[in-house]
């Protein structure tokens, strides 16, 4: 029988939600290579920040303080990508029904939130050091950050307030997609709206940076990206083990046992 597209619904996902049986029984795919990745990340971070302190030239206007740029901006860029990654994984979940995509989405957003808070703090310190205020509205990146953090901080409460795990995953995915689409638009609009009273400090246009600065910046960016990947992999590995433990416990106790379950925001099968 020909597969006729359903004209009434875009919700074409037809694979049943992943139950424990569909997860590989023994091998944790996320822990493979985790140690090597962690090692590479540690080395990259060391190299990057050694360059920052000993190689990159001092900025003419701001002096030593400007070096926060090499933490703040990579954190900003990586967390932005993390949010968009969370949205993409959410699309993967909605299309396939495989709970593992939801877990990836959760981890990506979680890590991106942590990185953006760190980036916000770094930016705030920088603002205090160069302009004397802990918060400045003139800097569109900082402002966009605040808005994005305010939005993604609601991700966990949203998940927590939905009890049924499958529905929780589905609704969280809808949120992740909407919020993921929001992030770039938000940055554009805030940048348009911010009047440039002071010259922009966080100038991302690489053209203004001399060679050594550019090199240091890119290496720092790669190092932070590796850090994100490592932490995310670590978190996914931990969640996977937890899913496995639950599955094994269910098998041991028998599936009919209706154990009282604590509500949780964390994706579980």
């Amino acid at each position, binding site marked *: 029988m020909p597969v*006729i597209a359903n004209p009434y619904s875009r919700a074409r996902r037809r694979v*049943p939600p992943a*139950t424990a049986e569909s997860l590989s029984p023994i091998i944790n795919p996320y822990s493979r290579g985790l140690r090597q990745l962690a090692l590479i990340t540690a080395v990259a971070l060391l190299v990057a920040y050694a360059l920052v302190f000993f190689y990159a030239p001092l900025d003419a206007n701001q002096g030593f303080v400007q070096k926060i740029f090499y933490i703040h901006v990579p954190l900003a860029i990586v967390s932005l990508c993390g949010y968009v990654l969370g949205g993409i994984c959410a699309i993967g979940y909605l299309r396939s029904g495989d709970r593992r995509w939801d877990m990836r989405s959760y981890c990506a957003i979680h890590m991106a939130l942590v990185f953006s808070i760190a980036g916000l703090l770094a930016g705030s310190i920088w603002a205090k050091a160069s302009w004397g205020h802990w918060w400045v509205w003139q800097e569109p990146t900082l402002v966009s950050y605040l808005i994005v953090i305010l939005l993604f901080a609601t991700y966990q409460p949203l998940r927590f307030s939905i009890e049924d795990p499958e529905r929780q995953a589905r609704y969280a995915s809808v949120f992740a997609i909407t919020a993921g689409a929001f992030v770039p638009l938000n940055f554009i609009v805030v940048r348009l709206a911010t009047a440039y009273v002071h010259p922009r400090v966080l100038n991302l246009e690489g053209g203004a940076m001399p060679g050594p600065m550019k090199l240091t910046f890119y290496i720092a960016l790669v190092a932070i990206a590796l850090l994100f990947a490592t932490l995310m992999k670590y978190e996914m590995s931990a969640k996977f083990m937890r899913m496995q433990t639950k599955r094994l416990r269910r098998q041991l106790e028998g599936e009919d046992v209706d154990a009282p379950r604590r509500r949780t925001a964390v994706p579980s099968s």
Partner: protein
Amino acid sequence: MASAGTSASTPIAAAADSGRGDSAIPAVLLRGLTRYFGERAALRDVHASVPAGATLAVLGRNGAGKSTLLRILATLLRPHRGEVALLGEPLPRRAWAVRGRVGLLAHEPLLYRDLSGRENLSYHAALHGVERGRVEELLGAVRMERRADEPIRLLSRGMVQRLAVARAVLHRPALLLLDEPRANLDPAAEELLEPLIGRACGATRVLTSHDPRSALAEADLVLALRDGRAVYFGEPGGIDEQALRELYA
């Protein structure tokens, strides 16, 4: 108890291939139907086959999975595992194609409390593409013409149930799903609604009831559920008093 789950003789694929509503294709076909809520299985590995025009009674305690089964048949919930075919169409892939031929009478009347009976029925009629005259016809059939313009919240539960029945049969469904149809009805009202949702209406019916004996009396087939599992599927004669007591124990 008689043996569990006799599987259907007609494979789902063949049933879907024929596609037309002739009597050879079972109106309802379940094979290994499983549905989870979180980690708990509300229905597990349920088999049943109901020929067109027959009445299936679903028996079981509260929490056995009866309402879940009805909601899956109404295309409101998707099966997690196993196969379901309604009127020859496999779910959930073809749910959209069969939706207009299924009628559900649920616990809730599915009527807006602040709108009148006539307004509610007109709303559902418009959604289902049913002509306006049908609304008046049904208001007459359930004897609600005089109070059809009062908001639902002012009506008694029996009247609301009558309007709910009218809503369920508005689009002349080929498959009727009745979740405790006699709740809130006095015997006079039951008689009134008999031609609409009783054996005489001609549709295939799947009904649940808190009173198993009356359900057995009007059933051609019986499916007994216990904790989500089918413990009996077959003729009503195969269930005796002892089995009933055990089922509802």
